[in-house]
């Protein structure tokens, strides 16, 4: 196996044993990027030179015995995280040349842990999308089938991990943007509890739903990254001063006599039979590991999509108001006065999906409509949260499919926003409730497309969630395949 194909924990073992160097690992990753990036298009910006320098510095620290949690490990960042001195586009023309003067908290933390940054990955513009087709920089392709989408909005990060163009990656998840592409690309993706990881420096889409999380090749790597990323940040008012456990400690423990809730509302009409079959197999796997599956009900599930498509666009319409051409980013030079400058800048700077959501959100907050839409949605959101609270009195974790279908074809849903929105139908509720969720590979379709199973747990139960996911991973023994590129 090539170095770039290994996991974080495998590479850390080799680095500690002096069997390889970060320079070799990083060179291996960039060798892979050179070979396959043209086909995949996972990245918007590569950070080759700084990565090689960071790798040298990491090797120096390893020689001195100053090994951190991620020293020398090449990691990719979704282009939604502000990186000091490296342009951060958010997949948008309006930030095409924006270079932040500061690092996001997660970037600072990864840097402090010794990570090597490979580059900034592709994404749907402002994280609005489920296919990474809404990027100003062109679509990312699914490494398993280049005619298909990798999922979104963190499609670049998922594809980069699946194609071994990095060892692990960071994404953000507002309605499924980590878990859905993780499932469609056959990797592990975790969305932690809202407030668990600081959002400072994450370009905002919908502030009450956005959460940062890792993409990894296995569950153990996910725990390793969570150990670095989780924790309170005084710069973020909604980050929670909840103690951070050592997530790796949970991994080797079993799940005997755990109760696993299977929500009937999540096995809906429209679920692809192969996806359903793979998830049903996953249920038998966890039962085989000693867990007991019970049916639970999340009665307000049918309202999730509607609530989400009011709350998220409403917040986005306000969050994206700052891109006005005045201070930074793209500005149309054609305006004759202020109003015209605003209009032309935003008309040319934003793509169609972003504009659609700004309009939906502006409408939902408008005087005379606020009560009927935003306020009502917030109330229903409370009911959705309560559904989960009640379900978790009966079970330890909830198991569902991550996505209704495997990866669809590029262009298949671009003309039908409603069909596109439906691809997040199984992941959105998690964000509305603020609970953690993880997608773990659970097999392949006959056509060789990966399928993911989603596990959900109560607030701040990431440890238990990882414990369950690793037990599943161990017992499922999903066949190790690599995409042919």
């Amino acid at each position, binding site marked *: 196996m090539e170095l770039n194909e290994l996991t974080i924990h495998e590479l850390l073992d080799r680095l500690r044993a002096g069997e390889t160097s970060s320079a070799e690992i990083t060179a291996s990753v960039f060798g892979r990027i050179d070979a396959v990036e043209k086909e995949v298009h996972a990245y918007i910006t590569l950070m080759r030179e700084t990565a090689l320098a960071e790798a040298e510095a990491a090797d120096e620290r390893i020689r001195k015995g100053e090994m951190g949690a991620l020293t020398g490990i090449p990691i990719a960042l979704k282009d939604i*995280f*502000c990186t000091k001195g490296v342009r*951060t586009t*958010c997949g948008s023309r309006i*930030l095409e040349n*924006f270079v*932040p*003067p*500061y690092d*996001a908290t997660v970037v600072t933390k990864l840097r402090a842990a010794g990570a090597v940054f490979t580059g900034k990955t592709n994404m749907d513009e402002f994280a609005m999308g489920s296919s990474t087709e809404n990027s100003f920089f062109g679509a990312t392709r699914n490494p398993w089938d280049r005619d298909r989408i990798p999922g979104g909005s963190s499609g670049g990060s998922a594809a980069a991990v699946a194609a071994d163009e990095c060892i692990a990656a960071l994404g953000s998840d507002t309605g499924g943007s980590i878990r859905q592409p993780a499932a469609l690309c056959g990797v592990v993706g975790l969305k932690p509890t809202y407030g668990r990881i600081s*959002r*400072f*420096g*994450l*370009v*905002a889409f*919908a*502030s*009450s739903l956005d959460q940062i999380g890792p993409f990894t090749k296995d569950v153990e790597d996910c725990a390793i990254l969570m150990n670095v990323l989780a924790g309170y940040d*005084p*710069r*973020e*008012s*909604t980050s929670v001063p909840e103690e951070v456990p050592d997530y790796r400690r949970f991994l080797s423990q079993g799940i005997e006599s755990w109760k696993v809730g299977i929500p009937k509302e999540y096995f809906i009409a429209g679920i692809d039979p192969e996806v359903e079959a793979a998830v049903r197999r996953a249920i038998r796997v966890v039962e085989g590991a000693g867990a007991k599956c019970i049916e639970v009900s999340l009665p307000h599930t049918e309202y999730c999509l509607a609530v989400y498509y009011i709350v998220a666009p*409403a*917040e986005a*319409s*306000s969050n*994206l*108001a*700052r*891109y*006005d051409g*005045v*201070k*930074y980013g793209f500005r149309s030079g054609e305006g004759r006065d*202020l109003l015209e400058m*605003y209009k032309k800048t935003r008309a040319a700077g934003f793509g169609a999906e972003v504009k659609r959501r700004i309009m939906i959100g*502006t409408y939902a*907050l*408008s*005087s005379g409509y*606020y009560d009927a839409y*935003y306020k009502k949605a917030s109330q229903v959101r409370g009911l959705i949260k309560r559904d989960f609270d009640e379900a978790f009195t009966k079970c330890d974790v909830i198991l569902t499919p991550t996505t209704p279908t495997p990866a669809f074809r590029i262009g298949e849903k671009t003309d039908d926003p409603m069909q596109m929105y439906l691809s997040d139908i199984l992941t959105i509720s998690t964000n509305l409730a603020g609970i953690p969720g993880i997608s773990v590979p659970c097999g392949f379709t006959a056509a060789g497309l990966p399928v993911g199973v989603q596990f959900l747990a109560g607030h701040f139960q990431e440890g238990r969630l990882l414990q369950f996911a690793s037990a599943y991973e161990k017992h499922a023994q999903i066949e190790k395949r690599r995409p042919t590129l």
Partner: protein
Amino acid sequence: MEFEPVIGLEIHAQLLTDAKIFCGCSAKFGAAPNTHTCPVCLGMPGVLPVLNRKVVEFMLRMALATNCRINPECSFARKNYFYPDLPKGYQISQYAAPPAEHGWVEVEIHGGKKRIGITRIHMEEDAGKLMHDERNPVSMVDLNRTGVPLIEIVSEPDIRSAEEAAAYLRRLHETLVYLGICDGNMEEGSFRCDANVSLRPRGTEPFGTRAELKNMNSFRNVQRALEYEIKRQQYVLEGGGEVVQETRLWDDTAGVTQSMRGKEEAHDYRYFPDPDLVPVVIDDAWIEEVRKTLPELPLEKRERFVRDYQLSAYDAGVLTTSRALADYYEEVVKLSGQPKIAANWVMGDILRFLNEDKKDIRECPIAPSSLAGMIRLIQEGAISGKMAKEVVEAMYKTGKTPQAIIEEQGLVQITDEEALAKTIAEVIGKNPVQVEQYRAGREKVFGFFVGQAMKATQGKANPQLINDLLKKMLAPDT
């Protein structure tokens, strides 16, 4: 028909916290453009606000001083609109859940007292400033002010005249300044006032259509603008017309309010709870902690001055116009033990000098201890009241102590009876005719001798002593 004005005021006061409301940048006024900025107040992508708790404390001071009910929990909302001085495209303010409500202040009007209700007080961030280049078609943005904390104080529509409005405004202004939370500078915009005005037939309940007045940057302008607007609306209504609900700007030069028609269309601010901030919890312990730090407020101080120093209400009012002036006065009283005389000196000469120089009491060159020293010297008879006038002027000009000035100028009052008797004897000897007249019963001539004696001593003699000696020496039996 007789109309009654209904007025409500909205006041924005910039708070004197060291840092801005949602970032660590300095909130001080007057720095070079865009030097008090950081990614947070510049509205960069990805940044998040964190509330400066000092702002809550300052807000609480005002809320307690104006008898507001403090809500145990309040939250922030976004007010959305586009303008280049607003980097995020929204202002973080408070909307549905304000921290303080249902307060009141008392104002003195026509010798009586009137209570004016305060609907709410809330916290928000200030916007930046646009600077327009007069020769080029460009505008520059200075974001130093962006994120400087403000409190907005909204009154009930309890105000019935321009005069009442001015009294209310003064009361809030002096309270804010007394509390040390706002510098109260109207010209620099750290204390701003907007007004809602409508008329209704006297004796009726429903409010008429209101106009909102803006751009009144002095107490005088607020009063003038309101007087104008009341007359304007009266004219419109008496002519059978209707008042239009609109925003009108006060034009100081023309002395009129003018419709903003078209310039600022009715905004839909699309308020919604700011998801980046958590609710602010204000418990009783915090309220009590703040209450302990409250200084004596102007009204209480005024009443105490009348009671303890036997001052007239007017004098107490003048001496408490600012906390610094009241503190100065009280220091002089403490050191001299003469509250009434101290009041006369402070309100008379001292304030006159300061007014002439457009200076504040804090810049007064005469230390309270020096003024008290001078008052003691008068009491002891060391100098006369007339001499004191000169001494105090010299003290103001030089900042020296009264003793130093008296010595330098040889101003020591002649209290040596023997020396004075000798001088008076000379005066009497030189004016035999007047002596005869006086002794013949023309008492008015006495004044002539006082004058002559003062002249002979160059005004340095103690007048009381001159009087006594003259009476004795002019008596017929001597």
